[in-house]
């Protein structure tokens, strides 16, 4: 928890205006996730070329941890195939924060990954 507080100061500096924040107007897939327990809301926008993710952006009403995590996630999956993106684990985001699933911010941090999974599950069905 103390570690999370130190993270917060750092995150505040780096993610006041998080990279990758914004809308992709002609997105191929848009996915929305809410964490009802904490009230974080996140939307991911994907531009695809076949099975490859060309671009990702996000908009949110969320805390810094969630925003920072979404920002990291966008960098992680840009240029990747859907299969590669789906193989990402919670830990791939948690390590940016030097924390683990016991963090009180765990749900905020993994929310973008949940949105990503929702997006591609939807795509597979189509």
């Amino acid at each position, binding site marked *: *928890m*103390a570690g*999370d*507080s130190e993270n*917060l100061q750092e995150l*505040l500096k780096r993610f006041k205006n998080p990279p990758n924040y914004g809308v992709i107007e002609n997105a191929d897939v848009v996915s929305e996730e809410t964490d*009802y*327990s*904490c*009230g*974080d*809301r996140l939307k991911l926008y994907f531009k695809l070329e076949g099975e490859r993710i060309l671009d990702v952006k996000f908009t949110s*009403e*969320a*805390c*810094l*941890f969630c925003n920072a995590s979404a920002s990291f996630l966008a960098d992680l999956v840009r240029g990747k195939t859907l299969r590669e993106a789906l193989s990402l684990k919670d830990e791939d985001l948690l390590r940016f924060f030097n924390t683990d699933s016991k963090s009180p*911010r765990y749900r*905020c941090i993994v929310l973008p990954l949940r949105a990503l999974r929702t997006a591609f599950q939807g795509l597979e069905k189509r």
Partner: protein
Amino acid sequence: MPLDPYALREDFPILRKIINGKNLVYLNNAATTQKPIQVVEAIKDYYYNYNSDVLRSVNTLSSQATDLYMEARRKIAGFIDASEDEIVFTRNTTEGLNMVAEALSGRIGRGTVVVTSIMEHHSNLLPWRRTVAKKGGRLVVVGMNRDFTIDMEMVEESLEEGCEILATLHVSNVLGTVNPARELSRLAHKHGSLFILDAAQSVPHMPFSVREVDPDAVAFSGHKMLGPTGIGVLYVRRSMLEEMEPPYLGGGMVKTVSFETQVYEDIPFRFEAGTPNVEGVIGLAAAVDYLRRIGMENIAKHESKLVEHLLEGFDRSMVEVYGPGEVDKHAGIVSFNVKGVHPHDVAQILDADGIMIRSGALCAEPLVNALGASAVARVSFYLYNTLEEVDRFHESLRRVGSLT
């Protein structure tokens, strides 16, 4: 005599804890309260000296345990002016409200109107919505006034339209506003409706009498009033309790059973199947003793003083308060947002200073959304909080403001 929080704090060992290098400031009492030595010792004494089954065995230990249990039941019932056979022990408020919604489902048919309000905790919304959906009834959600109290005109209109059950909360766990329970009850009964009250945030903090409010059912939780978790109380008017079907069947709730039939126990025991939470009941009775010794009126006044100091300290150019924002309309709960900072981040910065608050949708998502927010930060007080702690909170909150 006004209560002295510094003297009371001696009874709460946890308040001496150091968190992140600072003295713990616990401002999350609407979620759960801390426990005094007296409550923990009562539970310990029960386990060390009296532990047994209750209301069953013919032996000395069981009879001593039963005496303690029944004495505790009388104390807890007496705390809200009820008789001992009018209260049913539950796990918490949520379970109590679910039990009532289920038990009353027989009264709900096609087109039956159940009225609740926009400010409800999910526990007083979802059970009714399910019951109404199953039986083809209609759930009406009344709004609130500008001062964040329930819209009484809308309540009256809904009652005139034939509402059968009015279910509202007494004190909002988000806004801290106090609804006029006595008036709601009077109106409901005038129109032949039942009145169900979620008193999770009122019974622990102010004088409360079922004889005065006259509700048909009231639910509250032990852990929000210095008692242990896992014990709650559901008061039900005797005539309604006698009609209600027991939710669980099994041990302890029957007088006689054959392979063909059974005769249920009298009220309230027929609603308490299985070995009861004796530890919880005894712990809650000790909590009730503690609260009575201090006096509920004194607790309410103390919290009011804390709220006043809290409200005065906010920089309104930086902080939006959700609620009346006037001390005489607030119980000891205040929700707010710091402009431009997510409430989770506010909570985290305060946490670094040892200050525990709650942030999120507070299990009242429709209300929080209606306030135009997706989440809020909340401060909630109890008898052991001090004005100094409020000052420490504001000092820390100014650091949040400087980050925007």
